[in-house]
């Protein structure tokens, strides 16, 4: 429940960020730089005097945009490849599994850094890296679930009645694997948000002056001895989002998968 409340609040705050922001997040005011919280600037100001609260609100929009795009694209591709591996011939399965394992063999953040070194920092690169590294995670789970369903009686019956592969996959396998996929996607939001923030913190994500939680933390890190507020302000939404989506994902798992709930209760 707490997870759902946080998720809804964060989504609303991000959607209406432009309306809710009390100041222009890009407006520089050097006379009021590195100020603590006040009625005028709820979370203080950064090294250029920009309102941190407004930047945090706009940063949420970036974080959720990256999460939405990266997770939907990697889930769609992962779904397709996972079904091909799980339902297709054994040779295709083996090739795809080796491909998944190859991509997963790169330590994610190191791989991201290597790609950014080659292409230069940008939000699209961040999204691309997250998609590449997330596809095997979705594909793996889809493959396992498809393989488990492939030999079930109701699928065999469909086959005996001459149903096409597309019909079996679309009408019978997909509805049965949708629940674990949605749970995984929800649990993946914190990972993706943290990765975007992490790369932006390293100066390899969004380009300045666009606000991102990671770049707010980076600004705060550079001026840590002058003011603690940018670090505190940039970290709190990250903690809230990661906790909110994790708790939300766990609740969804309990609701959508009663088998897991029973197992979770006894374990």
């Amino acid at each position, binding site marked *: 429940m707490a997870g759902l409340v946080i998720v809804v609040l964060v989504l609303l705050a991000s959607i209406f960020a432009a309306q809710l922001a009390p100041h222009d997040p890009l407006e520089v005011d050097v006379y009021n730089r590195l100020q603590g919280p006040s009625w005028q600037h709820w979370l203080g100001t950064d090294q250029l005097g920009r309102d941190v609260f407004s930047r945090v609100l706009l940063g949420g929009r970036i974080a959720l945009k990256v999460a939405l795009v990266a997770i939907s694209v990697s889930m769609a591709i992962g779904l397709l490849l996972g079904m091909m591996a799980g339902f297709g011939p054994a040779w295709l399965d083996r090739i795809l599994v080796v491909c998944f394992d*190859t991509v997963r063999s790169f330590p*994610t953040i*190191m791989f991201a850094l290597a790609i950014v070194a080659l292409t230069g920092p940008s939000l699209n690169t961040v999204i691309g890296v997250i998609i590449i590294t997330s596809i095997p995670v979705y594909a793996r789970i889809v493959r396992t679930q498809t393989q488990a369903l492939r030999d079930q009686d109701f699928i065999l019956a469909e086959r005996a009645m001459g149903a096409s592969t597309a019909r079996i996959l679309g009408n019978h396998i997909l509805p049965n694997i949708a629940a674990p996929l949605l749970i995984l996607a929800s649990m993946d939001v914190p990972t993706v948000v943290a990765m975007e923030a992490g790369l932006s913190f390293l100066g390899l994500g969004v380009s300045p002056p666009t606000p991102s939680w990671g770049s707010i933390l980076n600004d705060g890190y550079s001026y840590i001895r002058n003011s603690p507020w940018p670090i505190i302000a940039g970290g709190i939404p990250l903690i809230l989002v990661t906790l909110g989506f994790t708790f939300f994902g766990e609740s969804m798992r309990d609701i959508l998968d009663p088998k897991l709930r029973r197992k979770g209760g006894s374990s």
Partner: protein
Amino acid sequence: MLSFITRRSLLSLLILFLAVSLLFAMIHMMPGDPASVLLGPRASPELKAELSQRMGLDQPILVQLGRFYADLARGDLGVDVFSDRQVADIVFEQLPYTLALVLVSIGGAMLLGIPLGCFSAIKRNSLLDRVTAVMSVAFIAIPSFVVALYLLLWLAVNWRWFPAIGAGADGDFVDQARHLVLPAIALGLGWVGYIARLVRASMLEVMEENHIRTARAFGLSERTIIVHYALRIAILPTVTILGLGIGSMLSGALFAEIVFSRPGIGKLLHEAVMTRNYPVVMGSVLVTTAFFVLSTLVSDIVNAALDPRLRESERSS
């Protein structure tokens, strides 16, 4: 078992080969050759040609790949174009710092996580169990670099309990240990939650087994049963995930190293990325990937040694 180890080792080698080739191909498929990117837009064609020659970029790609693997087989990861030093020397100079951080983090996570998980299982559904459950999820979810920044802010900058940057003076063990505390907490905190959850689940499963019931029937004390009979078995899954933990921490250590300005392979890679130093980028990613693949392999083998069902399932799949 031997055939399982051989099969898994060959598969790991294949994966490593593909991963390195992929990385190599990516560097060479990108628009603009590395020499031009490295020297900037104002470099003269002669200078670019000279650097390309030094980096071996003037050869056909297959020749470059072949030469790269031949060098790799001799332990040669190329030459750093800025300092003219061997990349392997630079990477292996930094690796011990990262390994020390990873080992201390995972050791600390086990020291905290195992008792927490154990107490949660014994006092199931108690306040402690519920608090541990929420804390475990929180520890796992919160990004390690945010933990690192908060630790730096409060414990190093504000309260000055621990040093803020560096790895400590050479030869001064106490100083080095003090410099390790905050980065190790930042890196290990998530694993405390993970290990606590794993041990709790495993303990609850073991406590239901027949040999525990028999031990109770013999009148052994609850403490003896837990420590000598239950925990010894419940701890096994934790031991097997250590391999994976060490592998993923090698990559996660990057943030702790940057936030606390500690030397290490992550910081080396970050600096190499910022200066577009491709040989060092390639070398450090390669060494970390190799460690990652190796630790996954060791973890799989230990798992299979402890649980024969895994060997069978792999054979049949």
